C-alpha cells in the first residue's frame, strides 16, 4: 500500500497520463505481490530517470527468494506455479516500456521496469 501511494504520487508529478499512471501502479502491484508470495519479502526502489531529453520512471523489485528456474516459461502468459492466472510477469512487461529480469536459483530475483513519459 505504501508502494502504491508513492508510485502514484511520483508518476503524477512526472506528468504521466491517467492511463499510464494506472498502468505503472498496476505493474507495481503485480511485481510486489510476486515478491511477497514467492519470496516472502523484497526490496523496492523507485527512481526518476532524466537524460535532459526525456523523463522516465524506473522501479526495481529485488528479493532474495528461491529464484526462477525457467525465466522464459515464467514470462509466458498463463504459466503459474501456484494458483494465479500467470499474468503478472508478462502483463507487467506489456504495461511498461522496458522490462529486465535477472534471477538465480537460491539467490533471488531482481526485476527492473521503466516507463518513459
Amino acid at each position, binding site marked *: 500500500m505504501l508502494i502504491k501511494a508513492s508510485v502514484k504520487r511520483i508518476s503524477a508529478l512526472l506528468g504521466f497520463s491517467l*492511463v499510464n499512471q494506472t498502468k505503472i501502479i498496476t505493474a507495481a502491484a503485480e511485481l510486489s505481490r510476486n515478491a511477497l508470495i514467492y519470496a516472502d519479502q523484497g526490496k523496492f526502489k523507485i527512481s526518476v530517470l532524466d537524460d535532459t531529453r526525456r523523463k522516465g520512471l524506473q522501479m526495481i523489485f529485488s528479493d532474495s527468494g528461491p529464484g526462477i528456474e525457467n525465466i522464459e516459461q515464467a514470462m509466458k502468459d498463463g504459466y503459474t506455479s501456484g494458483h494465479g492466472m500467470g499474468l503478472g510477469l508478462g502483463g507487467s512487461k506489456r504495461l511498461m516500456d522496458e522490462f529486465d529480469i535477472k534471477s538465480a536459483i537460491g539467490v533471488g530475483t531482481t526485476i527492473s521496469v521503466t516507463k518513459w513519459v
Partner: protein
Amino acid sequence: MERIPILKVGQYLLITIQVDLHDKMILALQDELTNMIVKTGARGILIDISALEIVDSFIGRVLAQVASCAKLLDAETVVTGMRPAVAITMVELGISMKGVHTALNAEDGMELLNDILHRDEYAHDFSAIN
C-alpha cells in the same frame, strides 16, 4: 480487520468497494459472499468498483471466482463502474473476467440483473410449454 459491508436488497446482494483492498480483505469478502448467497437465497450479486484505481491480476481473479461460485449457487454477478483507465490496463494485462457481467453504474447493473433473471424465467416458461 476492516470488513466490506454486504447489503441485501430484495433478491440481490450489493457490495460497494470503497477502499483499496488488502488481499486478506478481499478473500474474506469472497467467503462471506458465498455464505450469504446460500443463507439468503440471493439471485444476483452487484459489486460496484467505481472507487478502485487499479484492478490487478489478484483482484481480477477473485472477482471471476466469485462469479463462478455464485453461478454454481444459481446467482448472477455483475461488476459495475469500472473506470476507463482501469479497463484499458486490465485488457493490457490480459484479464478477461469471463462469466462476469458488467454495467456502467449500479443502477444499470440492477436493471441488467433484472433482465437476466427475467430472461431465465421466460426460458423456463418456454420449456414448460413444450
